[in-house]
C-alpha cells in the first residue's frame, strides 16, 4: 500500500506516439552526439523541441530527428534551442547582496578562491560576480570557472559584450545588488553593445562542460547553478546535485535559482539555507 497521492496524466494515443518519438530522438542524440537530454523535464523539453520543429516548419518530431541525426549543424541549432539561455547581470540582486554579506567574508579568508558557474550561459552572471569580487578586492585571488554545454553561449560569454538595451535593467540590478562603484566604470560602449573591461574576465575560465554526462573537475568554494536544474527531472536533479556536492568544498556555498530548492533531493541534509527567501546554501556535511 502506498500513501502517495498520484494522479496519472491522461495520455491520448497521439501523445503517446509523440512521447515515443521524443524518446527516440533523445536516444538518437545521445548515441550520435553524446548529449544526454533523456532525463530533462519532459514538458519543457517537449515545448523546446516543438519550438524547433515549428521554426523549421516540420510536421513531426520524427522529421526533426531525421534532420538532426544527419546534420551536425542542425544538432547545434537544436542544442541552441534546448539550452534556454536566460540570464541577467545581477539577476535576483538580493542574492548578490546576501553574497556580499555572507559569502565574501568567508572568501576573503582564502588564499585562492575557486568559483564555478555551472551552466553559465552567456556569462552575465560571471561578469556580475567578477565585478562584485573586484569591488571586494578579491578578484585577483579568484578563479572563475564558467561552464556550459552550449559552445555558442560560451563564445558569447568570452566576449563580455552586453546589448545596450539591457544595460538599463542591469544598472538597476547592479545598484540593488549593493554595487559599491559606478557601473559605468566597467564598460565602454561600442555600437549596440556595452563592452566590459577585459580585465574583469582575466581570471575567468570558459569551458564546455555537460552537467549531465561530465564529472567533477575541481573543488570549489562557491558553485552557482541557477535555473539549470529546473530543466531536469527529479532523477537527473539528484544526479547533478551529487556532482555539485562532490565539487563543493566543505563550508562552501551553493547558489540556486529563485524557484529551485534543495528540498526533496538526496543532498538536502548536507546543506543549510542561509536565508529563507534567497536560495543560498552552505554545505555543512
Amino acid at each position: 500500500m502506498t500513501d502517495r497521492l498520484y494522479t496519472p496524466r491522461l495520455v491520448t494515443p497521439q501523445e503517446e506516439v509523440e512521447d515515443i518519438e521524443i524518446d527516440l530522438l533523445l536516444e538518437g542524440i545521445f548515441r550520435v552526439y553524446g548529449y544526454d537530454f533523456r532525463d530533462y523535464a519532459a514538458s519543457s523539453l517537449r515545448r523546446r523541441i516543438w519550438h524547433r520543429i515549428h521554426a523549421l516548419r516540420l510536421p513531426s518530431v520524427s522529421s526533426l530527428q531525421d534532420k538532426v541525426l544527419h546534420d551536425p549543424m542542425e544538432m547545434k541549432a537544436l542544442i541552441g534551442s534546448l539550452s534556454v539561455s536566460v540570464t541577467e547581470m545581477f539577476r535576483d540582486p538580493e542574492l548578490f547582496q546576501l553574497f556580499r554579506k555572507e559569502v565574501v567574508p568567508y572568501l576573503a579568508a582564502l588564499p585562492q578562491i575557486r568559483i564555478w558557474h555551472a551552466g553559465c550561459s552567456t556569462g552575465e552572471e560571471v561578469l556580475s560576480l567578477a565585478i562584485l569580487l573586484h569591488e571586494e578586492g578579491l578578484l585577483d585571488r579568484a578563479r572563475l570557472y564558467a561552464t556550459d554545454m552550449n559552445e555558442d553561449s560560451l563564445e558569447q560569454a568570452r566576449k563580455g559584450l552586453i546589448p545596450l538595451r539591457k544595460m538599463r535593467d542591469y544598472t538597476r540590478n547592479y545598484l540593488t545588488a549593493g554595487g559599491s562603484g559606478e557601473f559605468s566604470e566597467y564598460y565602454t560602449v561600442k555600437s549596440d553593445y556595452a563592452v566590459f573591461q577585459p580585465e574583469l574576465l582575466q581570471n575567468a575560465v570558459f569551458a564546455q562542460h555537460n552537467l549531465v554526462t561530465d564529472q567533477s573537475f575541481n573543488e570549489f568554494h562557491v558553485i552557482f547553478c541557477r535555473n539549470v536544474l529546473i530543466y531536469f527531472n527529479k532523477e537527473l536533479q539528484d544526479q547533478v546535485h551529487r556532482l555539485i556536492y562532490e565539487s563543493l568544498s566543505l563550508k562552501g556555498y551553493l547558489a540556486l535559482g529563485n524557484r529551485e530548492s534543495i528540498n526533496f533531493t538526496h543532498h538536502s541534509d548536507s546543506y543549510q539555507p542561509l536565508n529563507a527567501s534567497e536560495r543560498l546554501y552552505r554545505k555543512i556535511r
Partner: protein
Amino acid sequence: MKIRTRLFIGFGVLIILLFAIAGVGINRFSELRSDVDEVYRDRYERVSNATSARLSMNEMAKHIANILNQGGSIRVEEELAHLSERKANTERTLSRLSDLSNDSPREQSLSLAASRDWTNFSNYVVELHELIDQNDLKGAVQLRAEVGLGYQNALQESLLQLSNYHEQQMDAALDQINEANQRMLFLTGSMTGVALFLGVAVVLWLIRSISGGLGEMSALVASISNGRYRADDIPPPPARPDEFDEIAIAFHEMMRDLSIRREKERELTLRLEEEGWHSASLAHMLELLQASSESNEAAQLFASEVVPLIGAAYGAVYLLRPDADAGQGGQAADARTPRFLERSGAYAFEATEERGFRLGEGWVGQCALDRKEMRVTGLPPGYVTLGSGTGQTEPVDLLLVPILHEGELIGVFEAAALRPYAERETRLAEKLVEVLGASVSRIRSRKRIEELLHVSQTLAEELQTQSEELQHQSEELLTQQEELRISNGRLEQQLRIIEEKKGELEENQRVLEQQKRELALSSQYKTEFLANMSHELRTPLNSMLILSQLLSENKEGNLSARQREYAETIHTSGGDLLRLIDDILDLSKVESGKMEVHPDAVSLADLTDHLRQLFAPLAAKNGVDYRVDLAPSVPPMLYTDAQRLQQILKNLLGNAFKFTPQGSVTLLVSAAIPPGESSEATAAPSIAFEVKDTGIGISAEKQGLIFEAFRQADGTTGRRYGGTGLGLSISLEMARLLGGSIRLHSEPGKGSAFTLTIPQYREELAPADLAFLEQAHREAAPAGELETRSVSNAPAHPGPPAPSIQEHETVEGEEARLETSRFAGKSILLVDDDIRNVFALSSFLESCGMTVTFAENGLEALEQLRANPAFDLVLMDIMMPEMDGYEAMRRIREQPAFAELPIIALTAKAMREDRARCMENGASDYMAKPIDTAQLVKLLNVWLYK
C-alpha cells in the same frame, strides 16, 4: 457502669466512712469530757467542801480546847480570833455546800442534819465565847462539858456522813465515765474496721474494672499488630458502654475506616500501576510510531509490539486503504464497492491467511463498519490455530478494536489470546489503538503535505522553465525583430541609396574623378609645398652653412679665436637645424602617409659594410670601440626598403655614439623570431639589428617617453629632448612601416641596446604584402580623423602588434567619438547651477548634435519639463539653490509621464550613501563630478538607447 462513676462511687464511700468515724469519735470524746466536768464540778466540790467544813470545825474544836485548857493566858485572845475566823470560814463552806446540793432526798436530809448540827454548834460557840469574855472559865468548861462536846460530836458526825455521801456519789460518777469510755473505744474500733474493709473492697473493685478494660484494649491492639484483627469479629457494643467500650468502638471504627482506606489504596495502587503500565506502553508506542514514516511500517511495528504486550498470541493490524478518488463522489464510490481493509501489520500470522477484508466482511469488516470494539470469547475449536515447529494451539479470546482518529476510520486491530484477556489489557489495547490511529493519520497527512509540497515545487520549477523559455523566446524575438528592423532599414536605405546612387553614379564618378584629380593635386601641392619649403629653408641654410664654414676656416686670418668659435657654433647649429628640417619633413610624410616604402632585395653584407665605414671616423674621433658583426646564421639577402632601414640604423647608431663618451658601440645583425608570435607556424623569421652601447643609458621612466615622443613631438617633451626624440620616433614609425619594431633595453650608467627587428619576407610573397601595406595607409590617410590609425594599426597585419597601450587608447578614443552618432537630434535638459559645468557640458553635448536646455535649479527644471515634456534625458546636479536635485528628481518621478525618463544624477560626492540616495530619489544612474566626457558618452549611449 462508667469508670468515672465507679471512681466517684468508690472514693465517695471511702470519704463518707472517714467522716462517720471521725464524727462518732468527736461525739464520744465531747460526751466524756462533759461527764468528767460534771463529776469534777458537782461531786468533787461537794466532797472537798464537806471535808474542809469538817476540817474547819475540827480546828474550831481545837481552838476551844486550847482556850479552855490554858485558861486566862494571853493566848486566849489570839485563840478567840482564830476561832471566829474559823467559824466564818466553816459557815461559808457550809453555805456553799448547801448551794450545791441538788434535789436528791438523801442529800437533802444529810444537808439538813448538817445544818442543824452546825446551828447548835455555832450557838454553843457563841455562848462559849460570851462566857470566856466574862472570864467564866468554869462556866465555859462546864458548858463544854455539858453540851459543847455533844454538839461538837454531832456536827462532826453529820459532816462526815455528808462527806462520805459525796465521795460515794463521785466514785459512782467516775465508774459511769469509765464505762462510757469503754463503749466508745469499742464503737470506734469496730467502725474503723468496717471502713477499712469497705475501702479495700472499693479499691479492688476499681482496679479490677480499669485493668480489665485496659487488658481488652491491649489485646485489641495486639491483635492488630499481629494481624489477627478482623473487622468482622467485632462484638456488638454493650447497651451502656463504658469508656473502654467507647474506645473499643472508636477503635473498631477506626480500624474499619483504615481497612476501607487500605482497600481503596490497594485499588488505587493497582489502578496506578495499570495506568503506569498503560502510559509507559503508550509512551513507548508513541516513540516507536513517531520514528516511522510509512503507515505500513507503523502498523507492523504496532502489531509486533502490542500483541505480546496485551498477552495475545496472534494479531493483525488492518488499515483502510485510502480512497484514490476521494473528494470526487467518494461517497458514491463507497456505496458501490466497499473499501478494502488491508492487512498492514501482523503478529504470528500464517502466510495462507486472507490479505484483508472489505468493509463489512467478516468480524474485521464488521468491526470497521460498526466502529465498535468487539469481543469474541469461547472461540469455537478450529476457529484459528496457531502453530510453531513444535505444535499447535487455539486461542480462546478474540479482541477486535476499530482504529479511529477524529471520527475517521483508519482500520481495525485484531488480537487473539490463549487465555481470557484481563480488563487492563483490553483497556491498554484501546488506548494504544488510539495512538496508532493518530500516528497513521499523522503519517498520511504528512505524506499528503509532502506530496503537495513536492507538487508545488515541481510546479514552481515548471513555471520557472516556462517563464525562462518565454523570456528566451521574447529575447530571440527581440533579437530577430532588431535584426529584421536593421536589415529592413538597411534594405530600404540601400534601395534608396542604390536608386539615388544609380542616378548619382555618373555625377559621383565625375565628382570622384574631379576629387581624385583635386586630391592628387592637393597632395601634390602639399608635397610640393613641403619640398619647396624645405628647399626654401635649405637654400638659405646651406648658404649660411657654407659661409659659416668659410668664416670658421679663417683663411684670411683676420678673425679672433673667439669669432672663429662663434662661426663654428653657427655652422654646427645650422647643421642641427638642417637635420631637424629633414626630420620634420620625414615626420610630415609619415603623418600624411606620404612616406613611401620601396622594397627591394638588400644585401646585408653591403649594408653592414656601409654602416661600418660610415661611423668608423666618428668612432675614431670619439675614441670609442666600434664593431659591426654579422651572425653566420643570417641569410645573405633581406627583402625590404634599404633606404629606410639604413635611415633607422643610422639614427640608432648616431644616438649610440652621441650618448657614449667612452667604451664601445656594437651593431649585431642576427636571425630572430619575432616576439609574441613565436609559436605560430606562419610567423616569418626576422632579422634583428641590435645597436648596443656602453653609454649613459636611459632610465625606465624615460624609456617610455622615448617611445611616446612621436605623439608628443609638438609638446614640451619634444623640446626637452631636442631632435633625438624625434629621430627615435621617426625610426620607430619607419620600423613599423617595414613591419618591424624597435625594442629598448637599457640601464642608466651601463648603456642601452636598441633592437630593430625586421621580418624576413620570402621574396615571392613580400611584394604583395608590402603593397598591401602601402595601400593600407594610403586608404586610411584621407579619412583625416583616423590619421593615427594608419601608423599604429596598419603594420599590425604582418608584423608584431604595436604597443598595446597606444592602440587601446587610440581605439577607445576613436570609439568614443564614433558612438556619439546616436545623440544627434536628442534633447537634453541640463540642470546645474555651476556655469562652468554648464558651459563645458553644453558645448560638448551641442557638438554631438544635441539640443541642450538649461535649468539653474530644480524648480526651473520642473518648469522646463512642464513646458516641454519631450526631453530625452535629464542631467541633474544635486547641490543647487532653491530646490536640490533629490527633490527635483522626486517631483519628476511623481509624474507618471516621467516615470521612465532617464535622469543621470551628477554628484560631486563619491560616498556610496550619496549615490544610494540619488537612486532612492529616482535617478536612473549617476556620475561623479568632474565630468569625464568618455564616461558621459557611455552613459548617454546606455540611457538614450532606443
